[in-house]
């Protein structure tokens, strides 16, 4: 860890070097270890120490960005010079107004000392637990355990300054037999919350129940989507249409729908950087404090997230969802939550006369963004449900399905939410039971 004092000195130096009209400095430093295992043994085991500084220099309405991971005084001066030189060489961007002004913000400490101090031996022991438990059942385990710390700092010449520390810990497990597989994951700020025995138990249970799957014809089924599958759908929904730029460019499914019912009244989706159930952040990559944004409330299209560029266009305030400059992709939601309901998975299962239980999806992609149609495969535990009970595993299926249609056909919503996806972002969601989910292809495994 570099530490706040040194980070402040570094960003002060950079702003002092700059002769630009406005200057922004973003620093992201990380030290992260990741232990990968496959065939029930560790086969890759890595550590990375890096710090990247990003300078955005503004000359009138000309903007230049330069980045470097070299932190010496000469290197930093050169970095500022490069950003200014880049700005000088381009035409003005009439849409640019200003870097964000400073806003009062609360401090956040999302860094756990135990996680920060996690050793290669700690990671190996946790992975060893998963591998041993799988081998005990004549199964093969694969996955990864990541631990690390990040420091985020943003400072600009208008006086904005933010400094966050964050620790992250994630454990994934795919447990396989010759004919089936199961999956589990845990993500937390706290290494001690990973529960490798529980992860192993969940994945092993699925793997054992997934053996010898049978063919099932593609078609429309009542489907119980576990949290991992719901998280994947939600991430894509945010990516294709819950940012202001997509709306401003007319390519979001939210266009023309604000204030209208687009999902079941039980569905609420929001972004909240402060919620400790995810990976909290107190400000975005422009230093703007994170605001909670209720994007879909009780099924009604309500709002999207903004950065300063898209906010200035509409005379609004940024909601604190800017990505590092230069950012042609627009603001992005990275702390996603879906509201819970009142059903247990057992109650969902009991209510299904005939349907499918899906553990997770694989290789999802967008087929039609404004109709929110995605395609992808099921993976690591797909089961046929009959008369309220799981009757056995089925071979993996391809789905091609509109997310909003699925969210409009929700029969039950899980009473517990799970942090079900982590890739520097957080997605905390319940399981869903939907009346109609369209499977369009089959496999032989």
């Amino acid at each position, binding site marked *: 860890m570099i530490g706040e004092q040194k980070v402040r000195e570094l960003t002060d130096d950079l702003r002092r070097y700059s002769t630009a009209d406005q200057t922004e400095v973003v620093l992201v430093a990380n030290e992260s270890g990741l232990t990968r295992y496959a065939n029930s043994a560790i086969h890759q085991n*890595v550590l990375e120490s890096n710090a990247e500084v990003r300078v955005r220099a503004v000359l009138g309405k000309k903007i230049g960005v330069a980045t470097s991971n070299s932190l010496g005084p000469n290197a930093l001066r050169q970095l500022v010079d490069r950003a200014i030189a880049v700005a000088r*060489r*381009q035409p003005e961007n009439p849409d640019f107004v200003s870097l964000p002004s400073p806003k009062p913000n609360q401090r956040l400490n999302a860094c756990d000392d135990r996680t920060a101090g996690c050793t290669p031996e700690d*990671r190996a022991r946790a992975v060893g637990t998963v591998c041993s438990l799988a081998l005990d059942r004549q199964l093969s385990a694969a996955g*990864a355990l990541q631990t690390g710390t990040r420091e985020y700092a943003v400072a600009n010449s208008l006086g904005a300054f933010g400094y966050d520390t964050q620790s992250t810990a994630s454990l994934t497990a795919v447990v396989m037999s010759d004919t089936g597989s199961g999956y589990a994951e845990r993500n937390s700020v706290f290494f001690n919350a990973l529960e490798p025995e529980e992860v192993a138990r969940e994945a092993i249970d699925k793997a054992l129940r997934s053996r010898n799957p049978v063919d099932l014809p593609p078609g429309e089924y009542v489907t119980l989507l576990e949290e991992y599958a719901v998280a994947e759908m939600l991430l894509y929904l945010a990516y294709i249409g819950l940012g202001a730029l997509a709306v401003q460019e007319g390519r979001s499914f939210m266009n023309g729908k604000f204030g209208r019912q687009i999902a079941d009244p039980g569905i609420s989706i929001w972004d909240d950087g402060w919620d400790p159930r995810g990976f909290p952040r107190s400000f975005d990559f422009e230093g703007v404090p994170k605001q909670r944004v209720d994007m879909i409330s009780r099924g009604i299209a309500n709002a999207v997230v903004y950065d300063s560029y898209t906010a200035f266009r509409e005379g609004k305030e940024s909601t604190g969802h800017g990505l590092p400059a*230069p950012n042609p992709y627009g603001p992005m939601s990275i702390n996603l939550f879906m509201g819970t309901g009142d059903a247990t998975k057992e109650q969902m299962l009991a209510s299904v006369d005939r349907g499918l239980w899906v553990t997770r999806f694989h290789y999802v992609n967008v*087929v039609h963004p404004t109709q929110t149609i995605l395609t992808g495969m099921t993976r690591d535990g797909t089961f046929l449900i009959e008369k309220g009970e799981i009757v056995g595993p089925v071979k993996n299926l391809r789905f091609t399905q509109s997310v909003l249609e699925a969210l409009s056909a929700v029969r039950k919503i899980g009473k517990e939410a799970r942090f079900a996806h982590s890739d520097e972002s957080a997605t905390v969601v319940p399981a869903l039971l939907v009346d109609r989910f369209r499977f*369009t292809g089959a496999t032989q495994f």
Partner: protein
Amino acid sequence: MRDLASRCLDLARALGAGYADVRVLRVRNEEVVVKNGKVEAMLVHEEEGFGVRALANGAWGFAGSHRLEPAEADRMTDLAVRIARASALVKRADVNLGPPVVSTGSYSTPVKIDPFGVSMEDRVHLLLEADAAMRQVQGITLAEGSLQCIRTDKLFASTEGSFVEQQLVETGAGLEATAVRDGEVQKRSYPNSFGRQQGTAGYEFVLDMKLVDNAPVIAEQAVQLLSAPQCPRDLVTTIILDPTQVALQVHESCGHPIELDRVMGTEAGYAGTSFLTLDKLRNFRYGSDVVNIAADATVPGGLGSFGYDDEGVPAQRVPIVQDGLFVNYLTSRETASVLGQRSNGTMRADGWNRIPLIRMTNVNLEPGPWSLQELIADTDEGIFAQTNKSWSIDDRRLNFQFGTEIAWEIKGGKLGTMYKNATYTGITPQFWGGCDAVCREWTVWGVPNCGKGEPMQVAHVGHGTAAARFRNVRVGVMG
């Protein structure tokens, strides 16, 4: 760079590593993005760092840092060896790298016009000119263009005596025209989707694209697509894919399943495994007789071309599918040794802070005798699909579904109605088994966004392809 590399290797030996290698990198990346007549992004990115990979107690460890300083070299080397010993706590067999590899030499990407010597102003001007040409077409909502050049100076050294220096230069550019009307969004890209076409080459690569000339063509198509009928649903027919879509088809359904690390299960926890299991080597009909595929890291200009891989193994050309028969995998030293082979040189890392993995080089479908015009004229009924829009494939690389930006009906040997939102789906060996013709107009297409591994690595790979025809394909899956 040399001193730091030697320091790491000496310390690794002293700490008891059975093998170690070190890579030291300096990278400069310049990128320009324009949108609707404005410069949306202009970025100069520089980074440097080193990574030490060590074998100790028969297991791997790796540590990398951005600080090219002696004390940090010692810390990272010590950590790499310590991590290797921790890995050995959960091992089932010792790593075997096979015979030593001792490579010495250097390689530089052949470049006619140094892209970094072309002024930023000229690069911006070219993109803005193309942008204006797209926006002259009525109905265009978004016009975008991007241009990128990357220079990587890389040193590789190992305790076996390898010492290799390389300078790799990549240049790429592309355009996107988007039309939006009544909730329908249609996009056309040139020369390829994924933002740009990219190769290991100089600025001549961008000039050859003739971006300004082609800008109005894609803009007009994007607008026409808004009024075009939906591609027929759930139809089994003949499909001709343009070279860029063939490239992605090769990438997903051949390139990934021939990675021997996937086959051996070491990607099972994330990207998945492969249907091309070891029993299928030289014993499995991957496609029809006209399907010939080779992995070739020596193709001039290919995005997957280099001099040496990140284990110091020289770049090479390897047959993968011969007359439809599956004959080879992409290998590393460790995986090749399991088969009693030598590595065919495909280990590459996405930067100093990542370990090398088996990555595609240029996985190429060999050209056939047809021209595209002849092929369409020879097709009574079917669909001609162009430029990838969406892609998905299962974790063994069998069941795929792709969408393309644009398609046309083929009727009586001629192109007819334009279709929007075309998709097609299939099972890999059946699909390639239905390939009955490959064209001769052949280009290496760059795929700059190939994801694999944890932490995620993004590789830049290439696919030499031509248009090809496939029989009995299911098209029009829209849910």
